[in-house]
């Protein structure tokens, strides 16, 4: 079964001069259970907007999104129950400790107090947050914050994880720790959508890759498929070649 199904998603914004701009343009893709799907593209390609529509934070202008069988527009609460969402620059409640924060989000997901405590302690143990679990979030380093954030996204043990640039701005060590977390979650059977513009990271992690450029999905497939399609070895070259091709096509249409 497809855990995530983006069906012709469209999001248009009106620009200050009154024109309409499509940030996401008829985007369709599917993600199967236990897979990491990499949504790749340069800044401003529409990755974040797509993820926000998948999570129900933004209403699509057109199309629909189905997560674990629930339509995001029709059953937003059910979707939120099966979803862990991590945004690129998520803040934490500065004046709560990491542990308090995890307990709070567990309770918001409907866990009883005892359950929430157990769940938080389990994640603290599992993700190695012990050293700073009792510090206020305001006092944590960027890498520690991101680790707490991942714990927050995992707190309800959701089958689907959406992660928007989870390694943005992290040092090599934190980067590695977080990528390891994500792989472990995939191995536990979770469906993961990962957006990034670090291509080597995607090469290493993703089972399936969608290249998004100017709001459109310009190529999709496993790394091998993409290699064959483009005749390039490295993902960054594949990427450049495909973008280049799509620009040519567009120019020809015009």
């Amino acid at each position, binding site marked *: 079964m497809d855990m995530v199904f983006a069906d012709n998603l469209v999001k248009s914004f009106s620009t200050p001069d009154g024109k309409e701009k499509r940030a996401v343009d008829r985007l369709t893709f599917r993600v199967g259970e236990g897979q990491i799907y990499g949504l790749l593209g340069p800044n401003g390609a529409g990755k974040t907007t797509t993820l926000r529509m998948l999570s129900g*934070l933004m209403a699509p202008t057109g199309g629909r999104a189905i997560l674990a069988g629930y339509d995001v527009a029709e059953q937003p609460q*059910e979707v939120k129950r099966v979803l862990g969402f991590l945004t690129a620059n998520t*803040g934490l409640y500065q*004046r709560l400790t990491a542990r308090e924060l995890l307990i709070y989000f567990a*309770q918001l997901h409907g866990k009883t107090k005892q359950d929430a405590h157990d769940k938080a302690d389990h994640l603290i143990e599992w993700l190695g947050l012990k050293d700073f679990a009792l510090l206020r979030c305001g006092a944590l380093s960027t890498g520690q914050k991101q680790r707490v954030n991942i714990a927050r996204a995992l707190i309800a043990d959701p089958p689907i994880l959406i992660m928007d640039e989870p390694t943005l701005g992290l040092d090599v060590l934190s980067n590695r720790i977080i990528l390891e977390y994500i792989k472990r979650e995939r191995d536990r059977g979770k469906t993961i959508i990962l957006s990034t513009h670090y291509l080597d990271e995607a090469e290493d992690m993703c089972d399936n890759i969608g290249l998004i450029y100017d709001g459109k999905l310009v190529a999709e497939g496993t790394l091998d498929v993409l290699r064959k399609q483009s005749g390039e070895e490295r993902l960054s070259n594949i990427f450049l070649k495909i973008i280049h091709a799509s620009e040519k096509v567009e120019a020809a249409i015009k």
Partner: protein
Amino acid sequence: MSSLDRIRTIYIKELIDILRDRRTLIAMIVVPIVLYPLLMVGSLQAVTIQAKSLDEEKYVIGVVGHEQKNLLEYMLQWDAKLVSQEHQANENEAADSEETKAAAPLGELVKIIAIKTKDALRVNIRERAIHLGIVFESNVFLKAIDQQNGVTILSDEADVRGQYVTSRLSDMFDRISNRLVEQRKKRAALPALFDQPFAIDFVNLSAPQSILGQILPLILILMTITGAIYPAIDLTAGERERGTLESLMVCPVPVIDLIVGKFLVVTTVAIMGATLNLASVTATVYFGGFDMLIATSGQGLPLGTMLLILVCLIPFAVLMSAMMLAVCSFARTFKEAQNYVTPVILAALLPGGMAALPAAKLEGVMLVMPVGNMVLLTRELLLGAPVQLGHLLTVLLSTTLYAGAAVAIAATLFGKESVVFADSGSMKTLFSRKLFKPMRLPSVAMSLLYVSLLFPAWFFVQSALSPGPNESAVSLLQTSAWLMPLMFVLLPMLMMTFWKVSVKQALSFKVPSVRHLFSAILLGLCMWVPAHELNLIQYQLLGMPQAFAEQAESMAATLQALPLGGVILIIAIIPAVSEELLFRGFLMGGLSSSARKWTAIIASAAIFGVFHFLLFKFIVTATLGILLGYLCWQSRSIWPAIIAHALHNSVAVISIVSPTTFERMGIKLEDGAHLPWTVLLIGCGAVVTGLILANRRSPSPQQSAIVTA
């Protein structure tokens, strides 16, 4: 996990979060505990120091010519003697010399300068080289009993020192005059009381609270506002600014729960802040020994008054917190929120200030004026004036309505896409009609906001239309019958059309089933039976206001003179249709878009009850509202409720206009008489049958579509 559990979780977390914030603590604790006493002591000392220094300064008095200088010096010496005599007398009487030792004799403080002309004197005073000028008509001291000396005193009213000498000098004239009068009476052999036909003693009976009562309500508004501002901003715009909003919005929690939790925290902090403020002011007043300044009779503040103020604080805090939260939910940054908050404070202070005017009274439109009614209520309570239960309830219920509307607005705005994401186009999307999505039902915020704006407006119309002594009640009734469809139906319809709400669906213009029509007829014809009995119980408990009874009688006389058809149209049918479309259509529809069945029915019925302004009838109207709401909900159509309401009203009209119709059936509707048990049995039986009939719910359009397919 229930809604209440979630709200509690949110409440606890937000409260911990906000109380750990240094800025909250400073605003809440340091400011009142340190700043108030400091300000109070400081400003009082400044006043005392200024008063003292005025007593010790040197002043210059100008006179015209040396002869007048001698005259003034003579008078000053005499006055000094009179003053010291007075002191001795006082000391013999009582040891309390606190006031009498206040100032040195005027003679020691002034220097007298002789100036040549009156004009030069004027110039010197304007230039403040001289504090006061004095011109005597005669240059000698006149002692004969039939003589009078004209005195002109020149001073600059804007000069503090000039004013001080003027007042001291006029004291001097008083004392000397009194002494001269005594001497004159002796010489003319007149009795001592000759010039004192009255001995007037002004006794001030004002309680110590009276001055407080005037100013305290306004201070309370300010205190609660200052308490609510920071948390309101921090809990709404702060979430967005710190980037925590997205994680929060992807949690499976309804926005209304989030907002209610946050609203309760803001209210708590506002109450805590105001309590600390109040405690600090009280402590400063007591321990600083300044209670004399506030309490006119010098008894200080009774503890009971302080408790009363604390209780009054709660509705203030509720309303202010809800308003703050509503405007801040619209903001994306702290700065933006602060910009929105300022006009709201000003807007709140305006009715508050109006109500603080001494002439304002808790009656008429002031009863439903947001903020203003609370200010007046607090004032009445503080002054110990008796407050009618009806007034108290009107104020509290209308405040609840306004706060509810504000919370609903906050819930609609908070987490809204265009507010969460600055990059998702501009704020214009909230108002640009092109981008609105068609909706089946109005939102809770839309219907609550409209109803809470309509409430004071309708109250105003009602009180403006209540007939004066020379006005015809009929024409006023007609005006009201025209206004009702306009305000209750047309405006909401326009509003819904603008926001692309399907009017047909929102107002449930669906053909009802025969079963529900039958139920409506039964209820409409027989609801008056239980309503009548309920009314009797209520009159026995609360009593019927005399004014209302009289009004009802004169109304009956007016109506009997009119054609029955017209009366039924104006009093029974038009209000029934308008009220149903507003309360069961627009309001209940809006509420049902996010509340459950009984919440929507009961809340709309309660507001329906409040709208009738006669609070001693609240229970009966609200109960009818529940029955009509149930009928509307079960039938998914407005028509049964309209029919039942119109029939019910018509029965009531007939009972007023032609009581004989009822008498023929053996029913007497005299005051306080219970209905015959046969009528009771039949009536209640019919109502129960009607309800049983209504119990089966009509299928929703989707369901019926499936059936026909």
